[in-house]
């Protein structure tokens, strides 16, 4: 991990609330894995002050490009959205532990909500490249926020979209949808990101169906290097609870162990 000064190739609005940022990573030698993230310096100002953690969305080592998909939410991402093609971005990383895809996971189910879609998209990309069957449930406020759906479909992911605006994203509907998918496919592992409510649901499914799974967490960060203990969450392995740091021990954790507050 290191603060890299990379060139911005694209930074454009892709839907009402989302931006796509593409950078040149030819100067980055480290391996970059789905589930990992970079801590971005959104401006050279003192306010926003902290960096912002953003997951890798598309990794293209052939073209040496990396893409991020981000929601414009507060001060930091607003400034990030103002950066222009050709400018230099200071990004610290790659950080954290990525997803684990065991060889035997030939069919996997992803459940992503909101910005979590960006995080799981990188996993879907990798799984599809390995010729695994990927089923993805994408949940968002509106169709407009489901911008990765086509990209994922195109790579062969079976996509199910649920949205608040259509009333299809409530917990019952999603539970029902998961049931159907579990009946249709022999799912080997579950992955989720982006919603506490849906994560609890996935934990239930994992327990009931005895499925392994992983979850990518978000927590407010200070250092993103494991030294400040800002980004902690609890893991419970059945007997003991231990505190872990999202930035270095995660952001990806065993689904069944995470204590969702």
């Amino acid at each position, binding site marked *: *991990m*290191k*603060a890299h000064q990379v060139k911005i190739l694209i930074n454009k609005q892709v839907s009402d609330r989302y931006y796509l940022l593409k950078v040149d990573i030819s100067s980055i030698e480290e391996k970059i894995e789905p589930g990992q993230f970079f801590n971005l*310096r959104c401006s050279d100002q*003192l*306010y*926003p*002050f*902290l*960096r912002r953690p953003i997951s890798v969305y598309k990794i293209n080592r052939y073209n040496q490009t990396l893409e991020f998909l981000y929601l414009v939410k507060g001060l930091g991402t607003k400034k990030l959205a103002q950066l222009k093609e050709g400018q230099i971005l200071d990004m*610290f990383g790659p950080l954290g532990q990525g997803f684990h895809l065991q060889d035997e996971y030939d069919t996997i189910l992803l459940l992503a909500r909101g910005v979590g879609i960006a995080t799981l998209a990188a996993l879907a990309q990798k799984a599809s490249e390995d010729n695994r069957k990927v089923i993805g449930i994408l949940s968002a406020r509106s169709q407009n926020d489901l911008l990765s759906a086509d990209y994922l479909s195109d790579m062969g992911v079976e996509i199910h979209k649920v949205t608040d605006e259509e009333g299809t994203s409530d917990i019952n509907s999603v539970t029902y949808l998961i049931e159907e998918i579990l009946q249709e496919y022999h799912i080997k592992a579950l992955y989720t990101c982006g919603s506490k409510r849906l994560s609890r649901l996935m934990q239930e499914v994992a327990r009931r169906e005895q499925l392994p799974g992983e979850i990518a967490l978000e*927590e*407010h*960060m*200070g*250092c*993103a*290097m*494991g*030294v*400040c*203990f*800002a*980004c*902690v*969450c609890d893991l419970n392995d059945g007997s003991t609870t231990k*505190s872990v740091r999202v930035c*270095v021990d995660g952001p990806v954790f065993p689904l069944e162990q995470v204590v969702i*507050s």
Partner: protein
Amino acid sequence: MKKLAVDIGGLILQNPIMPASGAFGPEMNSVIDFNRLGAVIPKSITLSPRAGNATPRVCETPAGMINSIGIQSKGINYYMENVVPFFAQYQSPLISSLSAESVEEFGQIADIVAKNPNVSALELNISCPNLKGNGLAFGMDADLTYQLVRKVRDVTDKPVITKLSPNVTSIQEIAIAAQEGGSNALTVANTLLAMSIDVETRKPRIGNIMGGLSGPATKPVAIRLIYQVKKVVTIPIIGCGGVMTSDDAIEMILAGATAVQVGTASFIHPHAMVDIVKGIQTYMEHHNISDINELIGSVIID
């Protein structure tokens, strides 16, 4: 070659730059070379393991941030068995930051830690605003400060550094109490007690309601505190609060600091400490200063 070495109450540092406790740890060795630091100080350690506070534990503010980590600690055993040996591989001296809930406990933990030959000095964190949840700290009372330092003094001959709170009416009083208690140096200062509320959710932005403000926003207060303390004590001061650049570090040295801690800056620029050491060298070259000690407290008052 410019002379960068300084003496902190008997502990010689190759240069005046060291991390601030809580903003540094073993994990940073993949980012910077610890051998280039004046000293290393990991996060404050407590006798028993402690859980720390509710999340979110950090939020940003204009030119700064608030934290309410709350001394999450794996306890002294883990520290002695893992952290101390880890830092022993580096040549920079290890300063152990200690936190405790009573004067007695400070004595106990200091005794254990100081006995370890790999620990070069102790920093007493008597100023953490996050410990008791109400922002209070030992370091807000001169008598308690005196007793606490004295207690630690009694158990060790190693350099003892007392880290003062900025949240007091007279830091001079507390500084004098610490010096009289036997402190060999003072860290000036810890974070400013602060709070931030999200106007959309109407909730405090950190789980613990209040927390400690750090970062550039606080530097003018830290400079003032260093200047005030320098006038009343004879022991060296380690400046701390808001240093981002070598100019900030030099500002602290001019105000009266012998060494300088860098905390939050590493979150923004992980490389900050090493850059600051380099920047100080450049400054000394430009200004034809051969020994950094010439700069200490050399602010010019007409």
